[in-house]
């Protein structure tokens, strides 16, 4: 048992943090709701109680996976670029504009639209990277500011030039059918973009753990000075990892537009860029763990929506819970004394055995 704890300590620590988060949400529901039993049931079981909600959970996870992968690539190199939100928004807006104003067969249209969106995301994501690499400007502040700029630019593009005035509310024109990602299970919104997010997770995993550049990214994050003296072109890595971040975020945003809404309808930023930060931290920047973390977050999200709909507890509770979990996970010393005690006990036992 104790050996098991030592071996999987980080995983256990993460799970305990998640469990504490769930305990807090249960207590919050009991504190706030007039009918806590029912609210609790809607929150915890809600996502599984109907077919549509279950598929809703999978749909919700997809853009979070994209953004989690995006953030993870930057975080692996210890670049705190949190610009996934802006890259996603601007990428999807420009991609939509391109899709709406061009006509071509689907086999050309889909990849081209995705290419435009990822290109815009990559360019936008690499700006803080270039500022950091060249002038040592804080990529955190730069990417935060650029998130706002991207939001206003995207909004301007859609509302002033591609707004569908017949729609009755502020949305873009509908994408031509040739740019739709097909939905493949009837009566659900499961689309190819969701599978694309899984494929991307595997690709990012192979990239980070089985290519030279991926190794260099991880080395830079592990110890930048060491990496530099080891002959790694750190400047290139700093830009590259943030470029890939923007690329993945742009792809995620566009896939969402092409697969689900078929229009650009975000008048405020959808928030997946920040969810990406959450799942990257929970999944310890590992692409495959990020998938699991994204499903967990999607579960909380859908549960929160059901809760909001069926009871008197606002869905912002989920925001509170998810960031409490993050706070606990980032606290390195959280539970470390427990681990230390086990290590001492193990050592003593070894001593006795001798």
């Amino acid at each position, binding site marked *: 048992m104790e050996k098991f704890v030592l071996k999987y300590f980080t995983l256990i620590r993460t799970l305990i943090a998640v469990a504490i988060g769930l305990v807090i949400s249960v207590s919050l529901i009991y504190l706030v709701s007039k009918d806590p039993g029912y609210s609790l049931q809607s929150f915890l079981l809600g996502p599984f109680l109907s077919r549509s909600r279950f598929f809703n959970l999978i749909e919700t996870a997809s853009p979070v996976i994209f953004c989690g992968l995006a953030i993870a690539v930057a975080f692996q190199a210890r670049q705190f670029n949190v610009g996934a939100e802006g890259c996603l928004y601007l990428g999807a807006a420009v991609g939509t504009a391109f899709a709406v104003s061009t006509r071509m067969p689907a086999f050309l249209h889909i990849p081209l639209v995705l290419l435009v969106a990822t290109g815009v995301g990559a360019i936008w994501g690499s700006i803080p990277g270039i500022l950091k690499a060249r002038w040592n400007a804080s990529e955190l502040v730069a990417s935060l*500011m650029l998130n706002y700029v991207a939001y206003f630019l995207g909004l301007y593009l859609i509302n002033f030039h591609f707004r569908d005035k017949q729609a009755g509310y502020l949305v873009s024109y509908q994408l031509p059918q040739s740019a739709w990602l097909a939905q493949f299970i009837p009566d659900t919104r499961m689309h190819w973009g969701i599978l694309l997010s899984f494929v991307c997770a595997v690709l990012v995993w192979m990239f980070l753990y089985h290519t030279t550049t991926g190794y260099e990214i991880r080395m830079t994050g592990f110890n930048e000075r060491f990496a530099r003296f080891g002959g790694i072109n750190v400047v290139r890595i700093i830009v590259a990892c943030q470029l890939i971040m923007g690329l993945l975020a742009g792809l995620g945003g566009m896939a969402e537009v092409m697969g689900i809404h078929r229009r650009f309808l975000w008048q405020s930023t959808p928030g997946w860029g920040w969810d990406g930060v959450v799942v990257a931290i929970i999944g310890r920047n590992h692409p495959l763990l990020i998938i699991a973390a994204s499903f967990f977050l999607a579960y909380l999200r859908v549960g929160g929506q059901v809760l909001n709909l069926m009871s008197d507890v*606002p869905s912002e509770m989920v925001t509170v819970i*998810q960031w409490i979990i993050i*706070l606990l996970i980032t606290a390195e010393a959280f539970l470390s004394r427990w681990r230390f005690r086990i290590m001492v006990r193990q050592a003593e036992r070894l001593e006795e055995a001798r």
Partner: protein
Amino acid sequence: MSPLLKSILSEQFGYAIFRVMTPLLLPTIGVAISGLSGAVNIALEGTMLLSAFVGVIVSAFTQSLLLALLAGMAAGMAMAALLGYFHLKLKADIILAAIAMNWLASGTTIFLMFLITGDKGSTHSLKSLVFPALNIPLIHGIPVLGPILSGHNVLTYGAFLAVFLFWLITFKTPLGLRIRAVGQNLDAAASVGINVNRTRMWALLLSGFFGSLGGLYLAMGYVSWFGRDMVAGRGWIAVAAASLGNNLPLGTLLSSILFGVVNTLAIYLASVQLPSEFIQAIPYLTTTVALAIYSAQALRKRRRKIREPQAGGAP
């Protein structure tokens, strides 16, 4: 003269600069003082949000400005203390912990606002108070200068006092000396018996204090209600402004004035035939550009410092 130029050269414009820069100057001081200690508090976005919310709620239910002020300050400092606990005691990365705290503040305020008012957007339904405006007796009568400098909110004058207070703490108190020592060389400071963690905790608490005043002004002076995520990036602009000002009193004042002028200009430009989205993007874009220019200069200065002794050659 064009109408835009006319309105920019008016007294109202000068007045507006002070109004707009107050919620930037206070958090900038907050970031700067924590930055001096080496543990930069980038959770001021959330600190301001929480203080603004607590201030509005307390003032609405007690109808007491003093209680609202105290509660708001307590909330801001509690948030800083929590960040300090997680960073200094539980060894959390301060950047990630602060990002989490900012979002925690955003979620918590909306959650509680809904429970109290039944509204997720703003507290318009509550009768909350605002801090009074002050007319300064002598200056008020001076033409041109009077309307610009007089009649501001108490907290606007408080913000300028805060710059002085910041200078006083940093350069005239033992605590300030310790904060600077810890920030400059942690090991050296520890070796002469300074408790590094306690000093940083004090710096964080002070940053929470200044930040909370900024939040209070925003909801109880700048406007008279609390709205969801109403801080709108000011806490982050403060991070840029503080590094632009080298974390020093005069520097933070000057960089806050710069951002205040730009933000006021953006508001005044709304009268021009430009899409409002462009104008709203201006403050954030300027911050990015200013950050890049500042960083480039700081880097050049550092490189020159490294090169000079080499140019002199070995003795």
